């Protein structure tokens, strides 16, 4: 991959990944509000906000981070299966995205219930929260960020073999 394209994809990847964490942070603020606040109007607004943030920020950013991550890894020396930190990052990203997509209908459903005029204030107060998921998701995203920054050493068997092949090729060259 050319240097200019690598920088473009890297910029997109960093932006979407960090944006993903930021969007989840905003989600957690609203999630905590649903736990700590008793005002039905505030709760209704919080559930609507959670749905909007998830649909229009978290999900698109998660998909963008996943796709750009694969593009970068395949287009650079790091590869997709050569280093353990890349594989772990990939697995964690996929898991986080799957859990997110599983929660999507629930979040949307709560927003619908919260905005339905027929729903009583007590009904809104009983909708519950997703704190465990959102905080767990944040921890996973932070682990991914740490791995991407520190890039801890560790070749996979495939990566080790490819590295030996590359080294042999260099030795053979005049």
């Amino acid at each position, binding site marked *: 991959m050319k240097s200019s394209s690598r920088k473009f994809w890297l910029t997109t990847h960093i932006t979407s990944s960090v944006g993903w964490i930021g969007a989840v942070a905003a989600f957690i603020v609203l999630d905590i509000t649903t736990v700590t606040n008793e005002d039905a109007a505030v709760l*209704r*607004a919080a*559930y*609507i906000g959670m*749905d*909007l943030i998830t*649909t*229009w920020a978290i999900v698109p950013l998660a998909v963008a981070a996943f796709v750009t991550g694969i593009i970068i890894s395949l287009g650079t*020396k*790091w590869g997709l299966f*050569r*280093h*353990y930190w890349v594989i*772990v990052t990939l697995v964690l990203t996929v898991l986080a995205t799957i859990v997110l997509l*599983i*929660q999507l*209908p*629930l*979040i*949307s*459903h*709560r*927003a*619908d*219930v*919260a*905005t*339905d*005029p*027929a*729903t*009583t204030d*007590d*009904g809104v*107060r*009983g*909708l*519950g929260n997703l704190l465990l998921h959102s905080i767990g998701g944040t921890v996973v995203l932070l*682990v991914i960020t740490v791995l991407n*920054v*520190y*890039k*801890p*050493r*560790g*070749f*996979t*068997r495939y*990566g*080790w*073999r490819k*590295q030996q092949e590359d080294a042999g090729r260099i030795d053979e060259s005049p």
Partner: protein
Amino acid sequence: MHGAPGEGEGHHMPRWVKVLVIVGAVVGLLVLGLLVFGNGEHGPSRHFGGNSDGSSSNTESHTPPAGHGAKAASHAVGVGVPSWP
């Protein structure tokens, strides 16, 4: 922070990967335990139609939306939600 990939290292699984796998396995088992022994009190399905505390009776008649909640919300309550694509 790190050198070029592959400087003087073998292909043995590093300790940090083993630790991460063990932590992941423990968390996975905990979640599995919640699913199996939590009487279905974990997972999205518990939120649709459940009424364990009796306080959310009005949520029972709702089914998961076909579209997105926020769009319906803007019409139902008049909240200023922009109609994004």
